[in-house]
Structures are given as structure tokens and as C-alpha cells.
């Protein structure tokens, strides 16, 4: 800033933090920010990882998520653009604090570790537009665990004005400092129930079996055999399949899991879907509508 005017080595802009939690989690069928790992939501984990390294940490949200209790615990910046994906969060943050550099983290990176973040901070190159990792899968820049310098603001706005929407393509086309990942799985993102299960096991094989509270609703033949419509229970079952096996030991269920389907939180799911705290589970007997 003032150092630029005097022609000396530019001082690095102050670093602010932004956790992107405004996605729609369409493939997960559950809000990715509130998925828990070892008893903490991913949003809490990301904020805890980021906060020690920045002047101020914010959660990026859509306008309609403002009152969501998980997000309301943190300072928020609401999107001002709609349907622009992660770029909307970054643009809103840059508009709020134009002089800042932003350490941006997606909130679906449960395997992101302290070492990976520390290396990014050490390698930060303020003279470039951004500092980012090169994906261990395809070699492309990873825009959602990256440091975006203040000068990226105008370039990004111009990119969006041209119709661009992809932060990865933006970084490919600009002066980005690219690093190799110290841990090749650190930036694996979690988009589906299966990826969630795999991340939970990678983080802590024992954590997946921690007791959790779930509710189960019963319909038709299963309702009659369980003798109830609904119950809340604490289970160590890791998946819907394990929960059904547990319940089948308690009740005289005559239907094998092969003929049932599973719904979790009012959507169909695979039997292998990991259970999370607070899930509402329904086992669906063979249907007979019409």
C-alpha cells in the first residue's frame, strides 16, 4: 500500500479469512457445512483451522442462510450475486474489505490439515494474484484453499463481467503461484454420502462408531412389527445397514434388507450411507401405491 508508493518491496496486505459455506449441497442431500467429524461440524473445524492465521475470519453465506444457527455463530458475509457459485462469496468479501488479501477455504475439505495450510502461508507470494495448490489429481489450481491478493479483485470482477464463473479457470489464466500438495489427500472434497463416509474413516476409524442420536420412523408392516410409529435412539451403527441389523435384533422384522429401501432426512439413500448425529431414518418396505 503506502510501501508501493515509496518503491520499496511491497508489504503484504493484511490477511483475512473466508470459509465458503453457501453451496447447495445438492449431491450430498444434506448441508455439507453441518456434517460432523469427530463431533464437530465441518464449518466449526474450518473456522478453527483458519482463525489463528488471519486478522478476521468470516463465513460466506447465501442471503437465505443468514439465520441458520450453525452459520450465525460466526461473522458472516452474504453473497450479493446469485447463481455465481463460489466466486460470489469471494466478490462479496472483496467488496467488504477491498484492501485485504483473503485466505479462502471451502467448507467441504475435512482432510485439510495444519501442515498443508502452514505451507500455503509460508509460500504466499503477494506480488502474484494468488497463491494456490496444484491439484494432486489433475494438476489444475485449487482455488478454494488459496490466498487471493487484493489485486485479484479487479481481475476477478472483469472475468465475471465477461461471463466467467469458474474460479479454477480464472486462476489458470492469471499470475498464480502454484505449489505441490504436501499431503495428496488434503484437498479431497466431499460431495456425496460415500465420500463423506470415506473421509470419516480416513480421519478417525474409531470416530465413525461414536454413539449418535437418530430418529427412526416406521411404516406399514415394519410399524406393526416394531409396535411403534417412531422412536429416538442412540446407536453406534455407522451406516443405515448397520442400524437396520441392530433394530432387527430387537424387533421381529420379517423383511430382509434386500427388499427394503432407505431414506435419510426425507431423501432416498444407499444402505452404505454413513449416519450422522440427528439423522431421521426411514426403512421403506416394498411399496404398493395405485
Amino acid at each position, binding site marked *: 500500500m503506502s510501501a508501493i508508493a515509496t518503491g520499496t518491496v511491497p508489504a503484504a496486505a493484511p490477511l483475512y479469512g473466508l470459509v465458503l459455506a453457501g453451496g447447495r449441497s445438492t449431491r450430498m442431500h444434506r448441508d455439507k457445512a453441518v456434517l460432523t467429524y469427530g463431533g464437530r461440524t465441518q464449518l466449526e473445524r474450518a473456522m478453527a483451522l483458519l482463525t489463528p492465521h488471519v486478522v478476521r475470519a468470516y463465513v460466506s453465506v447465501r442471503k437465505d442462510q443468514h439465520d441458520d444457527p450453525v452459520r450465525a455463530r460466526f461473522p458472516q458475509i452474504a453473497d450479493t450475486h446469485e447463481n455465481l457459485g463460489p466466486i460470489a462469496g469471494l466478490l462479496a468479501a472483496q467488496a467488504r474489505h477491498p484492501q485485504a488479501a483473503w485466505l479462502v477455504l471451502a467448507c467441504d475439505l475435512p482432510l485439510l490439515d495444519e501442515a498443508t495450510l502452514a505451507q500455503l502461508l509460508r509460500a504466499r507470494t503477494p506480488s502474484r494474484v494468488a497463491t494456490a495448490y496444484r491439484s494432486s489429481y489433475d494438476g489444475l489450481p485449487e482455488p478454494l484453499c488459496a490466498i487471493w491478493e487484493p489485486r485479484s479483485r479487479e481481475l476477478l470482477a472483469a472475468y465475471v463481467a465477461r461471463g466467467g464463473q469458474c474460479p479454477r479457470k480464472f486462476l489458470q489464466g492469471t499470475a498464480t503461484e502454484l505449489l505441490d500438495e504436501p499431503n495428496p489427500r488434503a484437498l479431497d472434497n466431499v460431495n456425496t454420502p460415500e465420500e463423506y463416509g470415506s473421509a470419516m474413516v480416513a480421519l478417525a476409524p474409531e470416530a465413525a462408531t461414536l454413539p449418535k442420536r437418530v430418529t427412526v420412523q416406521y411404516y406399514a408392516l415394519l410399524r406393526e412389527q416394531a409396535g411403534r410409529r417412531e422412536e429416538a435412539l442412540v446407536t453406534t451403527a455407522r451406516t443405515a445397514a448397520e442400524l437396520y441389523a441392530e433394530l432387527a435384533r430387537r424387533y421381529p422384522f*420379517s423383511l430382509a434388507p434386500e427388499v427394503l429401501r432407505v431414506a435419510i432426512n426425507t431423501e432416498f439413500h444407499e444402505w452404505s450411507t454413513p449416519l450422522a448425529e440427528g439423522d431421521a431414518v426411514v426403512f421403506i418396505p416394498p411399496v404398493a401405491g395405485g
Partner: protein
Amino acid sequence: MDAFRFSRTPLATDALRARLADPACGGYAAFEGWVRDSNEGRRVRGLEYEAFEALAMREGERIVAEAIARFGVSRAACAHRLGELAIGELAVWVGVSAPHRDEAFRACRYIIDEVKHRLPIWKKEHYLSGDSGWVNCERCAAAAAPAEAAGAQAGHHHAHDHAR
């Protein structure tokens, strides 16, 4: 748009049909499913429907939207009864309006077929003999028991209507 709805009282088909009226449409096709007095050789005196309503509504709306997109019809809707029904009562209604009859017939057929296979709705039949049973479930349970006893579960297949 409530393209799919449940009702605990008799379905008023005139009102349902009126919602599909459209000056651009020259064809209207409807399907009505009625409660029959027999099933698989057993005399039925009545039945009851139960549903996981939240998921069934969501899936029902998706089926209607699929039919509209797939066959290019103008409007479509489906209504399903819940609770106890007597012989002859209307259990399910599907209606479709379209510029021409062919796509109206096809969309109507698509909706009723998908509804029967995909929606979490269950039917309990009450028989004249005094007992009762959940359609597609009892047979399934009866078939599972000997398979388990024989330790041959892996290769066991069930040939009943079931959500995919």
C-alpha cells in the same frame, strides 16, 4: 404447484380435471385406479393406504415434472387417497392435458406406472375371510424365511413391485 397431492377424503375428479384446462390443449387423458373386490385369488372387502408423505410428495412432484419434460405435455397432476377405502372407491387419479392425444396418453401411463413403483405408499388389504395383509410385503417375507434357512440369501430375487 401441487402437482401431486394426498387426500384423506374422496377425490373430487371434476375439480382436479378443471385445473388442467388450457385453451392450447386439444386432448385430455385421465386414469382412475379403483378398489377391486379381489386380489390374487382372495376376496377383498376393503383396504387402507398409508404413506411416508413427505418423501412421497417430493417423489410424486418429480414424477409429474418428468412426464411433462419427457412427453412435452402442457399440464399434469396426480392425487392419491390415504386411509380406509371401500370396494369401488377411487384410490388414485392421474390427469394430463396436451395439444394432442398421443402424448397425453403416454404421459398418463408414465405417471401411473412410476407412482406405483416409486412412491413410498403401502396398501393393506382386508379379506372377507377376516384376516388382512400388506400387499407385496407378506409374500416377500414368506419367501425370505426359507431362503435364510437354506443359507441361500445371496441369490434370492424378489419379483414384486418395488421402488428402484
